[in-house]
């Protein structure tokens, strides 16, 4: 056998071995997302298989504490954020190169601190770039002027600093911060740069009092990120240009940078603040126990609390989106863990490899929806977090019927502005045919205008999580929604549960049209320039992003 033949054989074995390694969890990928036609039994079986796969989830979930990784800090007390390379044992006991937002405050050291603020707070912070490449922090979801937004037009070169100064004006919610330099956002975020930014207000504090919630104890942020590791346990990001067309799909789904995590909970109400911090992976989230989905309450979205809780038993979560949920573990049975999982679904990579300009082999190997060998396919059913429930009692609080006053969607303003998502047949994703250009602002709105945008994703496409900087919006209608998503609709307009709140990112599935309402009112003087882009970070880096202007 020649070396070449042997290598070919090993490559094939590698693929087969990788698929074999999926084992029972891999089978769950086959579960129908739509449970019609007697699929309920198959769904229960798939759920049990996912639960079984969580048996080896034993690593204590990393939580925000008084210092260190995810440590909690008042945003008003942070003076300097150093963006630097460091080391972190992402896998237990195995040091890995890791990029972090490092802060020193009161003789304590923090990595990717969890920043907390109250509406109205003034944030004054200097970012010091200690990387060997440009970077900038984007305060994702916060409505800032363009200089403080971190659009990527303004960046700090290596060894330079960038000063932010802004007032926190947005509703209480869990926002986040991450890099946004042009064309290198995906690798920088993947290598570790991401942190949470909590905003509180009176409604928020009333809810915490009513349920006895404490951040990091009974109110648990869950940052979902999929990562791959090399054979030494170091973070690995190897995404060639062809694979960027699909995005990065990692081998392990981490929570708060914990691989195969477990969390011990009491029988009471927990609040989980979920962020999809993955580069490209969508999740279909559910809490499983004994083959059934537990009900939970959706109470908030990207832009804060809903007006009232909405009981659901699953929800899709697309990159950059957040979900605020309450899980009442008094409803769970004792003696068996509850498993937060992503259920199997069709990931709808329907771009049609023959027409994309991406070689077929590249489309069907590492970085595509099959993921890396041994990794998790996009849309595959997998456990995410094991929750061990202790037999405690004495908690008698109830979920409030009223949470907040959610502003009504702005009234529609004339004919919708059409936004078409497609690819150009040459391996590029486009927005109305546009690709990012530094000196182009192909879309302009008037400050104070109320507009309706119709985001139309082509049939030969992928799911695109579309994020707008500078403003939050409301979803008015979905059309052409795939059946696996449509079954979660809550009204005749096809709105999903999270569409009932304020969003800064919305997922448009292939063939789907999403009508959204925007109010371009803001207090910032002069013309402002923001970004509108796909938050599949590899798509963003490839140029699926445009600048849009807000004319004063």
């Amino acid at each position, binding site marked *: 056998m020649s070396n070449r033949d042997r290598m070919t054989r090993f490559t094939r074995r*590698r693929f*087969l071995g990788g698929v*074999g390694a*999926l084992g029972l969890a891999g*089978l769950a990928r086959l579960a129908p997302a739509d449970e019609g036609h007697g699929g309920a039994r198959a769904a229960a079986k798939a759920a049990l298989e996912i639960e079984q796969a969580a048996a*080896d989830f034993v690593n204590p979930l990393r939580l925000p504490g008084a210092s260190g990784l995810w440590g909690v800090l008042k945003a008003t007390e942070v003076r300097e954020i150093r963006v630097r390379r460091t080391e972190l044992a992402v896998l237990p006991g195995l040091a890995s190169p890791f990029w972090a937002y490092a802060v020193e405050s009161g003789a304590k050291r923090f990595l990717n601190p969890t920043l907390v603020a109250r509406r109205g707070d003034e944030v004054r912070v200097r970012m010091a770039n200690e990387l060997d490449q440009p970077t900038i922090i984007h305060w994702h979801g916060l409505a800032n002027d363009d200089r403080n937004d971190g659009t990527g037009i303004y960046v700090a070169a290596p060894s330079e600093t960038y000063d932010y100064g802004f007032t926190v004006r947005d509703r209480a919610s869990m926002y986040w911060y991450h890099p946004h330099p042009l064309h290198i956002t995906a690798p920088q975020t993947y290598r570790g740069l991401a942190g949470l930014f909590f905003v509180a207000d009176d409604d928020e504090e009333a809810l915490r009092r009513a349920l006895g919630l404490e951040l990091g104890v009974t109110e648990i942020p869950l940052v979902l990120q999929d990562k791959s590791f090399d*054979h030494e346990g170091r973070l690995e990001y190897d995404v060639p240009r062809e694979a960027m067309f699909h995005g990065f799909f990692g081998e392990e789904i981490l929570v708060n940078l914990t691989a195969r995590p477990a969390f011990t909970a009491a029988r009471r109400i927990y609040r989980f603040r979920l962020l999809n911090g993955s580069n490209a992976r969508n999740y279909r989230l559910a809490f499983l126990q004994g083959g059934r989905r537990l009900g939970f309450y959706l109470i908030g979205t990207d832009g804060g609390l809903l007006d009232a809780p909405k009981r659901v038993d699953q929800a899709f979560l697309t990159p950059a989106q957040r979900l605020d949920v309450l899980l009442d573990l008094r409803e769970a049975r004792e003696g068996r863990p509850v498993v937060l999982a992503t259920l199997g679904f069709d990931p709808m990579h329907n771009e049609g490899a023959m027409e994309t300009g991406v070689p077929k082999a590249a489309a069907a190997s590492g970085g595509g929806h099959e993921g890396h060998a041994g990794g998790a396919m996009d849309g595959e059913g997998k456990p995410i977090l094991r929750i061990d429930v202790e037999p405690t009692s004495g908690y008698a609080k109830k979920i409030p019927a009223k949470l907040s006053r959610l502003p009504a969607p702005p009234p529609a303003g004339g004919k919708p502005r059409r936004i078409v998502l497609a690819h150009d047949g040459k391996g590029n994703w486009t927005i109305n045919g546009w690709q990012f250009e530094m000196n182009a602002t192909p879309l302009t709105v008037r400050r104070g205008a109320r507009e309706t945008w119709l985001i139309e994703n082509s049939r030969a496409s992928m799911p695109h999580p579309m994020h707008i900087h500078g403003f939050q919006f409301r979803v008015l209608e979905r059309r052409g929604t795939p059946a696996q998503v449509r079954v979660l609709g809550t009204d005749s307009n096809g709105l999903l549960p999270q569409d009932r709140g304020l969003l800064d990112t919305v997922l448009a599935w292939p063939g789907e049209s999403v009508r959204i309402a925007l109010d371009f009112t803001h207090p910032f003087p002069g013309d402002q320039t923001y970004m509108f882009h796909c938050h599949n970070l590899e798509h963003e880096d490839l140029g699926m992003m445009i600048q849009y202007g807000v004319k004063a």
Partner: protein
Amino acid sequence: MNRTILAVSMLVLALAADPARAQSSDPASRQPGGAHDVKSGTGTGIVQKIDSNKGTVTIKHGPLPALDMPGMTMTYPVKDKAQLAGLKPLQKVEFDLGYDGKNFLIIQIK
């Protein structure tokens, strides 16, 4: 479900019944047999999955030059199932891998 996913799913179905199918069916028969042509090499990697019943371990490992193997993720039978007892998923391991021209077998793993 597109054709690629269907194909991969069918492979998953086929292989979930026996993850070591890419090698052979009976661990007892996988002893690198005969005195000739038996090679072995030492590798390091990260444990992905342990199957105590089947006596297999899936490892993402680096190259094994002695066996002319590149780095890969692969499921291997172990010579002595008892060696699996001390292993945990995502643990870094060093292992000796034997190859008789047909089958692989982990001689030792720690």
